[in-house]
């Protein structure tokens, strides 16, 4: 697993992908940071993070689109699948490397937060909760993206499909009003990333949401492993 994790992480930084991703996310972060904190003279950082939710959901698929589709297209998966490593560890290695790029990006966003903290007294618990939530939904969408990437040989298809899914996961609670059915509404609210994430920005550390996001990661990594396994049989 570490071998694959290291290789993938390196390949993110050898190619422009990681730089473009980090550049765009940090630029947007900077813009909203300026809008909220500088122009608004506020130290309410959580607002910045909650705006970033949408952007991260939209851009994270760029990190995951190539994970398995590229391997399959270049037939490098033959090296991985004929090596004495389990499919599960291949999947987790890939997942963790994409997650690390995201993690680094989010750690960089802490720099201005700490600077603000040096001159004011923000609620650190709230910021901590926000960072955790940000990483959690990121991990979830990365796992989903990795899974979608394993379904196709085309990076573009993987990208578009994953962006589609993440938009759906963001907007899904607006559908709940459309159908007058309690069961439907419950389900929709249950899977909505938005309604899972928002409480964190209000300072509520919701354990069930933490479990939800972690479960999404585990389930989708499991599905990816099964998908790779099943390709042997088809």
């Amino acid at each position, binding site marked *: 697993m*570490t*071998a*694959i994790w*290291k*290789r993938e992480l*390196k*390949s993110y930084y*050898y*190619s422009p992908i990681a730089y473009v991703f980090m550049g765009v996310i940090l630029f947007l972060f900077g813009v909203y940071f300026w809008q909220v904190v500088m122009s608004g003279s506020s130290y309410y950082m959580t607002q910045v993070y909650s705006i970033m939710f949408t952007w991260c959901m939209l851009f994270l698929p760029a990190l995951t689109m190539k994970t398995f589709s590229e391997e399959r297209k*270049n*037939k*490098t*998966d*033959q*090296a*991985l*699948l*004929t*090596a*004495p*490593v*389990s499919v599960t560890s291949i999947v987790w290695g890939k997942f963790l490397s994409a997650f690390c790029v995201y993690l680094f990006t989010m750690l960089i966003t802490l720099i201005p937060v700490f600077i603000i903290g040096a001159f004011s007294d923000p609620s650190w618990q709230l910021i901590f909760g926000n960072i955790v939530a940000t990483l959690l939904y990121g991990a979830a969408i990365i796992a989903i993206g990795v899974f979608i990437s394993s379904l196709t040989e085309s990076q573009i298809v993987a990208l578009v499909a994953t962006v589609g899914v993440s938009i759906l996961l963001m907007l899904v609670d607006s559908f709940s009003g459309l159908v007058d059915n309690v069961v439907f509404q419950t389900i929709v609210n249950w899977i909505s990333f938005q309604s899972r994430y928002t409480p964190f920005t209000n300072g509520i550390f919701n354990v069930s949401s933490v479990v939800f996001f972690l479960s999404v990661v585990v389930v989708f990594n499991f599905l990816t492993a099964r998908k790779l396994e099943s390709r*042997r*049989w*088809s």
Partner: protein
Amino acid sequence: MIEVKNLTKRYGSNVAIDHVSFSVDEGTIVGFLGPNGAGKSTTMNIITGYLSASEGSVTVSGHSILDEPSEVKKLIGYLPEMPPLYMDMTVKEYLNFMYDLKKVTIPREKHIQEICSLVKIKDVYNRLIANLSKGYKQRVGIAQALLGNPPVLILDEPTVGLDPKQIIEIRNLIKNLGRNHTVVLSSHILAEVQAVCERILIINKGVIVADGTPDKLSHDLTSDHRLVARIEGEEREVLHNLRTIKNVVEVQSFGEKEPGVYEYSIEGAPEKDLRRDLFACCTRFGTPILALRNSDLSLEDVFLRLTSDTYVPKALQQPAVTAAPEAADSETKGGDQA
């Protein structure tokens, strides 16, 4: 070492390989020969655990690929048809990555350096794989298969894309490796298999149609006694005369090769030497023989025969579908063309 039993792979209704069985002993070099799409790569992919079989079993050193995939994968070094190279890495990084991936325990630097000098990629060691020529990429692929010194090497068309000099180098390399490794290589180039392998498996349309040493294969199929002769004289007449010779089964004209001289293929019954009778016949009718040679099938002919559409493999005529031309007839004079 490798035991393959009744291996079948279906893609939907399409049968890629059909009840293939063979075994490979330790320390032998076996060549898998067949036209494109015959099922060579599929078989290799199954042995290495990349694909799974629809039916049948593969065991390597007593470990089943289904039950103990990791154990089997540790024993095998695999060069797929397309070397699995990451274009964004240098040779050095790639080999180090594969070293980690394969969980090799041999001292790293020394081992990698040894392999690099073995396949002669030292001078591109620090270059990006994307910028290497096809030949170098192929060699990096071979290097990758050798990492960890696995007892079994499976090489799918190892010399594709190499120049003639490199081909000879790689063939020699494989021959040397064959001394202490079990090697299975595939190719659709006969000369290659002939030069390198101790045993040849010819596979066509998913079925093994022949199995044996290169000599034996051309011998088995040339057991019919055939002559090719150039005889002066009118074609129709000569044909007629030749057919009167005792034991002649078939005569065929290849057309006029020199003015007034035609070439004929004369096939006799097995184990019958036709040359004297032929000579006598031609003297009697006053049509001089200008050239005479044995027409043993080269391995190339064997291959073409076995893989032609009209050929029904002996294997299919027997109840057990394991090709065994050992059962094939007789110890005729045959061709040592190898």
